[in-house]
Structure formats: C-alpha cells, structure tokens
C-alpha cells in the first residue's frame, strides 16, 4: 500500500485497530442476543487474559504457538507460496521432539536436550514440507493441495504410531509416557524463580523466548540477506525473479524447508514445554490459525507477534468468558475469533478507502484552516 494517500502509521496501526473494533462491535451484537452485557463480557475477557499472572501465562503460552505457525506461513507467503500444512509439519515436528525426549530424557537434562530437540523438531517439520515443496518445484503440483493433504497423512501416521508403537500397555488414552521432569522445558514460573521473582504456575515456558528469537531471525532473513531479497522478489513477481537469475525451484525448496522448520518448532512449546508427553492432536488447529495470524500481522514478524498476542487473548480470555457466563459456549467464542479473522484478514481492504478519504478530508481541512489562519 505504498501508493496510498495515507501516512504509513495509519495503515499499520490505525487500520488494524479499526478492523478489530468492527469485529468486536459485531460480537457485541451476538452477546446482546444471548442476554450477556457486552461490556461485562469484554471486561471478563481482558481480565482473564491479563488480570492475573496465571491468565497472562496462558495468553503467552497460546501466543507462542501462533508466533511459530504465523512465522512459518509468513516466510512461505513472502515467496508467494501458500503453506497451509503448518498443522502437519508441527505434528511431525512433535514426533521428532517426542522421540528425542523419550530416548534421552533419562540421561540428559533439558539444557543439553534442547539443542537436540530443537534440531529434531525443525528437521522433522522441514522434511514434512520437503515433499510438497519438491512436488511444487519439479512437478508443478499446487502447494496448497499437497500441503493440506500432508496434514491428513501426518495425522494418520501419528495415530498409527501412537496406537501401535508409542503408547503404554493398559492405558486407554493414546499417549506416550510422561518425560522425566528434568527433560521438560522450564516453565516461566521456574525461570522467574531463578531471578528471584514470583510468577504463578502456567503453561508458558522457555519456548516463548525461542519464538521471539525466531521473529528476529526471520526479520533478518527476509529483510537483511540476499536470500530474503530473492524470496521477496519471487513473491512479488516469479517471472521477473527468474529473469533476474534466481533459481526458482531451488528457492521453493529452501523456503518450504524454513517454513516447515518454523512450524515444527511449535512442538517445543506443546510437547517438551507444556504436555511433556507425546499425545494425539496436540496441534489442535494452531497451524491453521497461523494463517490468520500471518494475515492480521501483515506478513511482518513484528506484526505477527502482536497478532499472536491478540489471538492469545482471544483464546485465553475466551476460555474465561465461556467459563464465567453459562450463556456463552465455546462455539460463540469461535464466532468472535472468526469475526476478527474476517474483518482483519478477509475484509482488511474494505476500510482502506473510507479511512483514506477521511484522512484526505482531515488533511485538506487542516490545510484550509492553516491558509485561512495565514490570511487572517
């Protein structure tokens, strides 16, 4: 939107805020329809997300997942590739983390395990993205179709492994054994304890910091390296990029490997951080939500952090909301989330023109005021 007539801060800050306001206004109508005071509901939501330490922990725990998958989508999207296989890549990444932890948790503490699990999650996630990438680059199969199909393959593979190989005898739930305590990533309350602070127990853990680090790395990659330039060039115009000497096929593979690796890192938070065991369905839609996060975050690592926190608030505050108001069930929370996605993602351009006009109007008024003041 470089050619728009409005200043950059408006399109980066004001527009998303207006979009979200619209979403909440429509949510308010729904709340009114079920006899819930929307202002009370908003208070409960904000309080639930930021009002107490445990709530804050949960908000950032959810945000960690969204940062990873949001970044994964963003990297691929910068190259014009729509990777919607984050779900499966994260799932298989979790398998990598789980296998490492199950194999080595008796012998190594978490800080020695962490490099291995990080590598495993990234390698497994990247490998899961490699096949669709190869098919796109060399066979022309559309990446949207192949990545979404790989989500199903990942799901089936995990069920097979969890039910037949990794589960414990006599255990009803298809889950692996719980890792040794020493192998799990330290929770944020533990980390705070090291520095003499007190923080209530919550699932938020070290991987949040890893997620933030990944944001910086992705930013460096996309905007400060030759690869990043090539990626963005291919995203803007594949044919021009190829004419400019960029090896398109190789780049598709590289981009998808990075994207898959970022998705795979999600499992650090879920498997080694929170659950400390391998179980079915731990990705729980975070991969798909990553697409929305990336859209709302405007494809920029910093925007993705903000959008992830927004979704963290929606998840955690929403849970609080449905807990405190019997009239609001979890499907309605999903409606609120969907409205945010609709207004910030799908309809994000709807309000550009009106806002532009408003600013042009305000600008002219200011100018005319200035001239009239000068004349006087």
């Amino acid at each position: 939107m470089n050619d728009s007539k409005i200043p950059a801060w408006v399109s980066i800050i004001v527009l998303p805020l207006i979009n979200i306001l619209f979403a909440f206004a429509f949510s308010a109508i729904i709340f009114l329809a079920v006899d819930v005071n929307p202002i009370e509901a908003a208070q409960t939501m904000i309080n639930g997300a930021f009002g107490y330490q445990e709530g804050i922990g949960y908000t950032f725990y959810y945000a960690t997942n969204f940062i990873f998958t949001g970044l994964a989508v963003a990297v691929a999207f910068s190259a014009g590739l729509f990777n919607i296989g984050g779900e499966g890549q994260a799932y298989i990444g979790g398998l990598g983390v789980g296998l490492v932890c199950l194999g080595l948790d008796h012998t190594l503490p978490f800080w020695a395990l962490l490099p291995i699990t990080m590598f495993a999650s990234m390698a497994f996630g990247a490998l899961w993205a490699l096949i669709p990438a190869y098919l796109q680059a060399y066979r022309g199969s559309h990446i949207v179709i192949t990545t979404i199909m790989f989500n199903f393959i990942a799901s089936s593979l995990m069920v097979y492994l969890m039910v037949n190989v990794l589960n414990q005898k006599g255990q009803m739930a298809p889950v692996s054994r719980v890792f040794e305590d020493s192998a799990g990533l330290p929770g944020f309350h533990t980390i705070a304890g090291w520095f003499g602070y007190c923080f209530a127990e919550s699932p938020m853990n070290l991987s949040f910091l890893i997620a933030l680090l990944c944001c910086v790395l992705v930013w460096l990659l996309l905007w400060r390296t030759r690869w990043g330039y090539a990626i963005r060039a291919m995203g803007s115009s594949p044919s021009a990029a190829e004419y400019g000497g960029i090896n398109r096929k190789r780049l598709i593979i590289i981009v998808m490997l990075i994207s898959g690796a970022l998705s795979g890192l999600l499992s650090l938070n879920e498997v080694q951080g929170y659950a400390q065991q391998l179980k079915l369905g731990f990705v729980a839609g975070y991969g798909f939500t990553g697409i929305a996060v990336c859209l709302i975050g405007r494809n920029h690592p910093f925007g993705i952090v903000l959008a992830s926190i927004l979704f963290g608030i929606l998840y955690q505050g929403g849970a609080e909301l449905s807990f405190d108001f019997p009239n609001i069930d979890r499907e309605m929370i999903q409606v609120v989330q969907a409205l945010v996605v609709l207004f910030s993602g799908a309809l994000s351009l709807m309000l550009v023109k009106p806002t532009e006009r408003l600013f042009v109007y305000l600008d002219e008024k200011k100018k005319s005021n200035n001239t009239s003041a000068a004349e006087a």
Partner: protein
Amino acid sequence: MKKILTTTAAAVSIALCSFVAQAADFKPAVAYDSTGKFDKSFGQAVAENGVIKFMEQSDTKVRELVPSSDAQREQGLERLARKGFSPILVVGFLYATPLQKIAAKYPDSQFVIIDAVVDLPNVKSILFKEHEGSFLVGAMAAMKSETNKVGFVGGMDISLIRKFACGYEQGAKYVNKDAEVFQNMTGSTNAAWSDPARGAELAKSQFSKGADVVFAAAGGTGVGVYQAAADEGKYAIGVDSNQNYIHPGVMLTSMVKRVGVATVDAFKAAEAGTFTAGIQSLGLKENGVDWALDEYNRDLVTPEMEGKIAGIKAKIISGEIKVHDYMIDNTCNY
C-alpha cells in the same frame, strides 16, 4: 535492613505463590470431553441420563464445562477446583493426565473420572467392561446372521475401539466358530467420530462382502452405518445409548453403556457424604453394560435367541466365559 526487606519480600512472594484449597462442600461440577455434550453418544449420555436427571432429582445445580483444547482441559479443571467445586466429574480418558496433576494439587476436592484410571486418594475411577457388552452383541449378531458374516465399524482407530471390536469378534466366534468378522475403522482423526457418509460407505462395503449384521462403535458416524443397513435391508447394532428407536426393525439391539447411571450414583454418593476413591469396574454383573431390548427390536429377537443370550450373560457373570480385554496386552489373542 536490606536483609529484612528481602526476607519479607520472599515471604510475601511465597504467600502470593501459594493458594488456598477450599474445603469440600457439595458443589457438583462436570467437565465434558472436547466433543461436547451433544455428541449423540458418550457425552450426551452423561448429560441427559446423568447430569440432567440428577438435577431434577436433587434440586442442585451442576456446573458444566466444555473445553475446546487440551490446555483448556487442565485449566478448566483447575478453575473448577479452585472455586471449590466438589465432586468434579470428568468424562473421558483424555482427562487422565490433567486430572493426575489437578487432583494431587487439590487433595480436599473429590474427583470422579469415567473411562480412565487415576490412582489418587481423592479420585474415583469408573471403568466399563465394554468387551463384555460387545461379546454379547457379537454373539447376537452371529445368531441372527444367515451368511455367517458379521461386520464391525469403529470410529477413530484407538485402543478403546479395538476393545469393542475384540469383544465383538470373540462373541461372534463363540456362537459360530466359522463366523467371519469384517472390521473397519472410520479414520484416524477426531473427525472419524462424526462422519456418517464414510460410515455408510464402510457398512455398504461390508454388506457387499456378505455381512448381514453390522455393529457400529463410532459415535455420530454410526448414524450413517444404521442408515446403510436400513437401505439395504440388513441389521445394525447401536452403541453407548439405546439407539434401537432410530430404525425400528433394523436395529437388532444396542450395546448400552450406563454412564448416566454411574454419573447419578457418583453425585448421590458425594452428596450423602459416602464418596469413596478407588477403581470401580462396571461390567455385565454390575449392570454397567448390557444389551437393549425394547418395543423397537422385540420382533427381531426370538425367544430362543433371548434365552441363549441370557445363558451367555450368566456364564460371563459367573466367570465361566472369560472375555479377553484388548487393553490388557494390546492384542486380540484369546
């Protein structure tokens, strides 16, 4: 001075970190599985035959919770416990890990878990011997079958459903050693519990191979299985709740799992102050599982069949027939 300050700060922070568990008054709550309480199967059986019935009988409001993700399971349980709810009944084996943590943290609250074992002094674990009920309906299927071929359609391919399948197979083979049992699972994701179209496809493929009775242990997917049986003039067997009414004349019977009764009993015991922890395993003997006979399938069950089934049931109860439980060794060798 500085030392005093730091010690006070430490003491305050410890006080802030700790929490006070409230004493156990009777404030019942129920936490459903993430499939919700309108899943036409397990959750609904707890809700309609358990929670609603208990609320009618005792005038006590039961707090309900439906989580939408795994993290919310633990979070919701913790919140219920912190607000002083007790007993808290949790539905489904996916709660086993979170309950392990929360029940240990709130030793004064009482918990009941259905379909899993949590070995703590304040948790009552209720299990159902699905293999016994499945054995009975398997035997019935084999008696009714004219082709000596019967089918099984499972939901998601997990141990619990294999337990159903294994019991069913044993029952069918007990009646007729040469009986063939076709088994299909609907899928490997949670969607497998609510895919009637695929259920119908699987049932039809089993019918085309010659099966004429099919048992569905597949949640909402079963509806499609029953429809396929009705369309092709075959027989079907329902699961969890009594589903005979869905297609009278087609539904041979239903393998009922009396979760509602167990729910009401658990709440009543807690209300009367006679809550006991430990494992409760409900089979045919305890009336926890059974086969359903009502006006909708009366005509399908001949008195001769009824007599035979009663005989088999008595033998299982007395221990003369041992039904192998898949979960014990994760195999179906019996």
